Structure formats: C-alpha cells, structure tokens
C-alpha cells in the first residue's frame, strides 16, 4: 500500500501482500512492537509483578548499555558494515579509565571521565574504520580481529582483577535519580538519571541519520557503495565516521556499566555482542546494510531486555531466554526476508 499507484498497476501480484503480515513486512518496527505487546500481555497475565513500577524501572535501567551498543551497531550496519569490537572497546575503556582515575585522579568529575571514554572509543573506532577502508577487508573479519587484540591488550597490560574501589564521582553518577516512586508494599522504585544518556543518544543518532548529509551518506553507502561513490559520497569519511560513532557510544556505555554496577570487571560485556546484534536485527534493520531505524533499534533492545529480564517472573527458567530470543530472530528473519523476495 505504500507503493505508488504506478508500481501497483505494474506489479499486479504485489498487492496480494495484504493483511497483517503484509503490513508488518512493510513496517518492521511494528512487528517488534507487536512482539513486545504480546510478551508483556502474556507475562503480565501470569505474574502481576510485571506491571509494577519497580520492574519497569529495572528494565529501563537494563536497556541502557544494550541500547547504546545497539545505536552504534545500527549506524555501522546502516553503512553496510558490521562491528564486533564494541564490547571489547567498552570493556577496555571502562576498566582502564576506572582504575586510572582511582589511582591518579579520584577527584576527577564524571563528566570528564565520560568525555575521555567517548574520545577513547572514538579513536579506537576510527582505527576500525581506517582498517576496513584501506584493507578493503570485510568489516566482520577486521572487527573480530580488533576485538581480540583489544581484549588481549586489556587483560595483558591493564589487569584481570575485579576492581571494586571505584571513584566516588563514578559511583555517584549511577545514583542520580530522576524519578522515585514509593510502591504499595513499602519499597522504593528508582529510575536512575543515566537512562537519559540513552534518550539523548537516541535523539542524536536519529538526527544524524535523518537530518544530515552524513546520515544519508551512511544509508547510501550501505545500500550500494559503488553507486554511492560514483555519486560523490566519500566512502572513507563515511566508514570512519560510522565506526568512530560506534566506538564513541561503546566507550560511554562502558562507563555507564561501571556506574550502575559500582564495580569494574575486565571480563564483563564480553559475549554480549550477539544480543545487541539480535536487538538491532529484531528492530528491522537488514543485516546486509542500508536500512534500519533508531525507533526500531530501541524497540528491539526493549524486546531483548524484556525477554532477558521478565521470563523469570513468569516462572520460566532463565535458560529459556536464549531459546525465546532465538525463535523471535528466526521469525523476524523469515518475515523480513519475504520483503526482499517479493
């Protein structure tokens, strides 16, 4: 239905793609939304605890790091790349900056630490972008390589021990509240202020992708890099930007992870890449690049967080989480693939 009349009349078979599935195929994020609603209704019916403010706040909190990773991954994916190194970048910066701040400058305000994490992540991301561009190698391979290198660097040169004496400024940042609600059973539910970082990152990412030439260049390159180059889009600039942006968000995400957990574990975050990729793909972005939306990605993040956090409420063992996420991914993959096949 979103096709013009012209297309419709030229492809008579296409209009048969009516009904719910056709509608969902054309608007992938709605599919994600539908799954979120379904899961919420089911879990909510089984366990009334689900709809409690404390649970909602918990999920918001749990979405932040995945959300930041997801936004970064979306930008790289939209530009036709894949980034596997963001968790390693986040782990390196969070551990390094936390331990360094604690030993040399415990008075350092959180704003400066966050900025350092952002800049550090950006620089590492730029390295990814430059490698991908100049080696003309698949981004998947290059970033798996850099992931290993960064992780090994962290564990060899920076440290392997759990670090709990995190500086006050970092710890305090995780405690700022924007909303405190007293619940019926006397406990207190708190929405921490750092969820705003995800909100801001979402808005900025949306603005870059939709309102700047860089954003359109990202989609152009992701759609067909040869054609985009021919039209005058600078492949190098776009690739470096996309990976740098992903690195920047990864750095910030790493620090928020420390802030909210009040400890720095160099082995944390490792292995969460697939969950992030799952979220972005569930949000309707094609794995082959050139598509995806911020809204879809955030919905995907919510869906994955939901499954990871609330199945337990319904009495489903946590080992089933991956099963459910996996089924959703296969379902989404099958649905969105029909969009390509037409």
């Amino acid at each position, binding site marked *: 239905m*979103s*096709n*013009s*009349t*012209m*297309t419709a009349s*030229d*492809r*008579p*078979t296409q209009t*048969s793609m009516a009904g719910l599935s056709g509608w969902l195929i054309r608007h992938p994020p709605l599919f994600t939304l539908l799954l979120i609603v379904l899961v919420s209704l089911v879990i909510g019916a089984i366990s009334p605890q689900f709809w409690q403010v404390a649970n909602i706040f918990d999920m918001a909190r749990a979405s932040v790091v995945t959300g930041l990773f997801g936004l970064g991954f979306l930008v790289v994916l939209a530009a036709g790349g894949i980034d596997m190194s963001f968790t390693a970048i986040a782990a390196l910066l969070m551990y390094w900056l936390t331990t360094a701040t604690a030993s040399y400058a415990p008075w350092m305000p959180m704003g400066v630490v966050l900025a350092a994490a952002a800049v550090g992540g950006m620089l590492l991301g730029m390295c990814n972008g430059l490698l991908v561009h100049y080696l003309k190698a698949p981004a998947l391979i290059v970033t798996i390589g850099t992931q290993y290198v960064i992780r090994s660097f962290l564990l060899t040169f920076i440290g392997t021990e759990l670090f709990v004496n995190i500086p006050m400024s970092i710890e305090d940042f995780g405690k700022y509240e924007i909303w405190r609600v007293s619940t019926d059973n006397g406990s207190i539910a708190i929405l921490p202020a750092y969820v705003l970082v995800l909100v801001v990152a979402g808005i900025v990412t949306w603005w870059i992708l939709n*309102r*700047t*030439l*860089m*954003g*359109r*260049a990202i*989609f*152009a390159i*992701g*759609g*067909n890099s040869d*054609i*985009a*180059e*021919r*039209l*005058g*889009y*600078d492949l190098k*600039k*776009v690739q470096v*930007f996309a990976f740098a942006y992903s690195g920047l968000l990864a750095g910030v995400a790493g620090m928020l992870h420390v802030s909210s957990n009040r400890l720095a574990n160099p082995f944390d975050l490792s292995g969460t890449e697939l969950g992030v990729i799952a979220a972005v793909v569930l949000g309707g972005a094609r794995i082959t690049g*050139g*598509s995806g939306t911020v809204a879809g990605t955030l919905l995907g993040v919510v869906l994955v967080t939901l499954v990871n956090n609330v199945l337990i409420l319904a009495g489903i063992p946590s080992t089933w989480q991956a099963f459910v996420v996996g089924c959703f991914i296969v379902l989404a993959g099958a649905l969105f693939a029909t969009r390509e096949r037409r």
Partner: protein
Amino acid sequence: MNSQNPSRSVNPKAEADPSAAGPFLELRGIHKRFSGVYALRGIDLTIEAGQIYHLMGENGCGKSTLIKVISGALTPDEGSILIGGREVVLSPIGALSAGVETVYQDLSLLPNLSVAENTALSQQLVESGGHLARRIDRTRLMETAVRALSAVGLPTDARFCATAVEELPIATRQLVAIARAIATDAKLVIMDEPTSALTKREVENLIGVVDQLRAHGVAVLFVSHKLDESKSIGGRFIIMRDGAKVMEGNIADHSKSELGYWMTGKTLDVVRYRHGAHGGEPLLDVEHLGRAGAFSGVSFSLARGEIIGITGLLDSGRNELARALVGVSPADAGVIRLAGQPLTLRRPIDAIEAGIGYVPEDRLSEGLFLEKPVRSNIVAEVLGQLVNRFGKIDVGRSRSLAAKIAAELQIVAANLDNPVQSLSGGNQQRVLIGRGLTINPKLFVLHGPTIGVDVGSKDTIFRIIQKLAGDGMGVILISDDMPELLQNCDRIIVMRKGLIAETFEAETVDEDTLYRSLLLER
C-alpha cells in the same frame, strides 16, 4: 574554434542557447592506457549544449572508458578536458558540479533511499562540495524533487516521493535518474544503454523526456547498440573502434549498414538469418501451461529444427513462461511434453536432465560466475561428467571441453583461465550459450540472447542459433528486440496479460504489426 570537427556548427539549436558562447565540453587528444594497453588513443570530442549525441562502437572499443573520463571516474594519461572553455581536472564530484550527470546502466540510483532523496540529494551534496557534516535542507529537498519529478512526468505526491527506489519498476527508475539530472541542473546527461531493459512504449516515453531536456539546452550523450533507436532519436553520432574515433556526423545522413560498417570494420548482413523450411518431427508440446499470477492456458508446439520467438511487454508473462519451461519458477498447471515424454520441471536440474538448455536473461546476475575462469563457467553444468573416480574434477577433460566449445562458438578470450568478467559482453553471452550446449540439449531456451551485445557479436550469435536449429535442435527465443525475432524465427508468439494473444509467421509479418499486437489492450 576547433578545426578537427568541420560539421559541428550546423546545429541551430546550440546558437539558440544564449549562455552557450562556445561548446559546453571539449576533449582534446585524450589518451588512456591500462597497464600499457591502449583504451583510448587521442580522442577529440566536442559537446554542444542542447545537442543529442550517440556514442557507438562494439564492446571493448573504449566507449565505457571515454564515459568514465568525462564523468571524472578516470583521469586521462594525456590530453585535456575543457568545460566552458576552461581546462579542468575532473573528479566524480567535480564532474557533477560542472554539470555532467552520468546515468549508467544500473542508473546509479541508491535502491534503499527514497525517490525524493535519489532525485534531489545530489544537489545538496554537490553544493557542499562533498562535505558530509551538513544539515539537510528538507524543505528545499522536497521542492527540488517535486520540480524535477514533474519535469519528467512522474507523480509528485508525498507517498511516491517517500517510496524506496528498489520498489519501482525499471522504467520509472530511469525517469527518476533523469529527474536527478534535472535537479542538479545538469548541462550534459550521459546515458549508458538506457533502453536495453525497456519496452518500446517505455522507450518512447524516455525519448519524449530527452526531447524536453534538449529543449532546456541540456546536451544528451547516448551510448547505445541499437542502431534503429539511435536513428529514430536523431542527432549526431560518434563511432569508436579500438580506442579511436573513426567517424562522426549527422545520424540522419547515413544508413544503418554504413554505421555498422564503421563500427565493425566489416559489412554486415541486415537480411533474414533464417532460411529454409521448418517442420521436422514434433519435439515440444506445451498444453494449457499456467502459473498463478503470471500466465495461463499457454499451448504451443515446436518441431525439431524450428525456432519460435516469444515476445510481449514486461508484464505479459513471457519471462515467467521462459522460467517455467526451464524449471526456474515452475508452472502450476498444464503439461509439457518433450519428444513425447511428459516432464515435471520443478527445479532447473529437472530441465537440464531432460535436455533443455537455457540462457538466462541477465547474464551478470543469473548466468555467469563473474570472477571464475571462462573454462569453469563453460563446464559448470556438466561437472558431474567430468569427475574422475576419486570425485575430483578432471582438469584435462574440463580444459578440452571448454576449448572445443570456445572454438565452436568463436569465443575470443586471451586465456580460458581468465575470469569471465574480463570478456566483452558478446563473448560472455557466447560463454553462456556454450554452457547450455555442453548438455547436448534437444531444446534450447534463449532469453534475450543479445541484450547489451554489439552488432558484430549479434551477427555471430545469430549465426550460431541458426546452426543449432539446422542441426535439429528446437529453439525458443524470448526477446523484445523485434528485428532479432524477425530475422531469426519461424513463428513469433505474442503474449499479452499472461495469455498467448497472437501467433505470426515471421517471414510474412512486419515490425509494425508485431508492435501493434504487443501493445493492444493497453
């Protein structure tokens, strides 16, 4: 101004444009070599505003290289490029901002971006000089898009503007590409084989748009193989051979055979290739064949040694019929009998085993393994017969089979181990035909066998087809190139809306009658 081009100033249109004091673009002595091999040798060219040019020549003559030089994708080794009388060094973005817009065969559209963005974003990119850290002026984007889209007669409503280009049919995409040229205020639009994927009606529409461009003082440079079309469009021609310009002039002043001669250096037959009567024993019998949503009730029969042409508009079901006959997208109703045996064609392998050879329409995406050697491409369908008892492919036998086919079909390749993408279009097509022949087919289905193939290669391919039929093979030729069908077939089936509309004897029907039959009920 330029003494090398005496017949240049005959066009009054150029003088009508007040801004054009001199030619828009001039090339002087352009040389380009690739690892020592000449692609261009001393090309001089003058492009005047508001004039139409046809750049002609066989595959490999240097046309594409020349286009890339003009559009800034390649830098010449020697020679100079002048735009508006000033010498320039062109980059892709530089050429665009100078007003040179190239519409390649793939149309250079970004499939995932919207119609509006494809149309009007280049304007803002060019203005920013390629800098990407800029806000998009969305109001202006839409204004420009609406202006340009309406200039080529496309809808301008918000829904159409927001449609992703990949969802549009090819003819509409082409108009979007032209709209982009208008949006960037192009002075010269280069179109690389723009009509190869279009039906006649769409071609006429395109020609109308080109006329409008010209009326706005835009020069248009066509790169085309279709002499008929070029003649009907009119304007000037430039013929290249072996990297050099061999002739230029007014296209109306020369006959097709003259033009063909300059392109190939040899005289070409423009007569019917098909000689002699058909009517051997029956080979193929198709009864009430159908596929939901594509075609239905298709019945025809074909004798050994007979050539049947099938044509129709894009939505006529001819492509789907071809794919059903070779098991690519199976029919869901009716019967296909080959030499009396009923066939079940559910997958391509069923057709191969039944002895049906197939040359698909799009050799690049459906036919060839582009990066693989010519040899591997030729033997790809008979690998099973080439393995020794350890399951390893016998390279010696593979080589000799490929060499035999290459010799039979006059495939010109420096080395059969070179990637097939290094061959010219005509040779690539012959590789595909050769692959089809390795299975010794009884029936050969050729889908658009000469799309994007130059005149000389066309001649060779037609002769091959005739020889195959002469040896007793049944041939089905699906094409929208009317002269091709008329020259080669015994009978021509015209399809409309999924049905067989009419069948003609190729010897007695003429092109006009065929076209009229094709377009009826539209």
